[in-house]
């Protein structure tokens, strides 16, 4: 582990006082207790730093890599998350670690269709109205194609948000969408504000998961829902071996070929192995105060959706 950390130490040595903090888990309480970065043992401060750099490097290729690594299946996982959420128009969503906007855009599409259906239903009941009255009802709804639904995308990484914002412009998303640079462990949002909190493929990269869960609880309204989509553990032994083979042999190679970054994708597959399995995460979510905590395995546990409610 020490050998692996050397190049990073050299890099960080230029930052003077930071080196002292990083040098000893013995002395380094300033940098925080020991934790993991993939299979390495690092201090909390080092971990945050490294993860920041991982996403800084992969930001521009993030979407392409997701498609390549999962053969496009990640899109289905995210669609399933939205269907589970089943947001109605007027919902306020906080998407944490939402970086490039995949969940946010799906949310907007979903409430937009739901809203259209709502309006069509309304029109059906207006069949005996005059054209004047019907056009007036159109006016009222003119600025509410989303029905007051809103999504705030919060991410700690500037590069990921930048990519997300550009994507939004490119795809024509503007209404009901905002971007905030913030820390999942220390959210810049007021209490009891959001209807739904999502974190898709992000909680694995949070250093203090317990703090992030507490913050999630804090910002949700009573009755609000917590949804977490994340890689999880495969219990089937045969599938598990195939999955390991694919993860460790194929993914880092893809990372090198497509994004020119073997190390970041090595971190990715290692971090998946280090992440708590379904039951353990469920317990952590319950510890944060959520009720009716449950999980749904997708693809035999390669991915799981955890859900909880603030009552």
């Amino acid at each position, binding site marked *: 582990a020490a050998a692996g950390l050397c190049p990073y130490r050299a890099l960080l040595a230029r*930052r*003077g*006082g*930071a080196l002292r*903090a990083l040098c000893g888990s013995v002395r380094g309480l300033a940098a925080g207790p020991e934790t993991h970065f993939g299979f390495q043992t690092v201090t909390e*401060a080092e971990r945050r*730093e490294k993860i920041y750099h991982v996403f800084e490097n992969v930001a521009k290729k993030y979407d392409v890599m997701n498609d390549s690594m999962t053969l496009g299946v990640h899109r289905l996982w995210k669609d399933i998350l939205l269907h589970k959420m089943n947001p109605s128009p007027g919902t306020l969503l906080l998407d944490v670690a939402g970086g490039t906007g995949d969940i946010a855009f799906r949310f907007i599409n979903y409430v937009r269709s739901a809203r259209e259906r709502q309006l069509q239903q309304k029109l059906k009941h207006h069949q005996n109205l005059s054209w004047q009255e019907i056009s007036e009802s159109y006016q009222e709804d003119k600025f509410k194609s989303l029905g007051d639904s*809103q999504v*705030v995308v919060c991410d*700690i990484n*500037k590069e990921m*948000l*930048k990519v997300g*914002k550009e994507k939004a412009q490119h795809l024509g998303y503007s209404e009901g969408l*905002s*971007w*905030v*640079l*913030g*820390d999942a462990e*220390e*959210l*810049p*949002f*007021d*209490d009891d*504000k*959001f209807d739904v909190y999502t974190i898709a493929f992000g909680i694995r990269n949070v250093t203090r998961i317990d703090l992030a869960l507490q913050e999630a609880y804090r910002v949700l309204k009573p009755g609000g829902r917590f949804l977490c989509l994340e890689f999880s553990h495969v219990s089937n032994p045969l599938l598990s071996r195939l999955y390991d083979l694919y993860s460790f042999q194929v993914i880092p190679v893809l990372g090198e070929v497509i994004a020119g970054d073997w190390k970041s994708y090595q971190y990715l597959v290692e971090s998946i192995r280090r992440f708590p399995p379904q039951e353990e995460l469920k317990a952590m979510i319950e510890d944060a105060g959520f009720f009716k905590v449950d999980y749904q395995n997708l693809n035999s546990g390669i991915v799981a959706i955890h859900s909880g409610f603030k009552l």
Partner: protein
Amino acid sequence: MLGGGGGRRAVAAVLRRAAAGGRAASGEGQGQDPDPGQGSGSGRPQPLEPSLLRFLVCPLSKRPLRYEEATNELINEELGIAYPIIDGIPNMIPEAARTTRKKPPAEGSKQP
């Protein structure tokens, strides 16, 4: 002399203690360098999405913020810190915040 990442973290740590104790940050009011992408070369800064102000609070104290149009920042008066807004995205990471005062509470003047 505060320098680089270590320095910002130290300031953030001080601010956290202050927020917890309900007191404003003491002494060390050296203005942090603003993000290089902001200000000078970039022309008119992008406005903040107005609806965000409904939700945004200071991540440290969870208290409301004031939007300062002149500097395009979100100000927490009590702790004397300002969060920059870059390309319309508010940067709400405590380490990135600029301290706005040299001396404790009574002073209202900002760093040049």
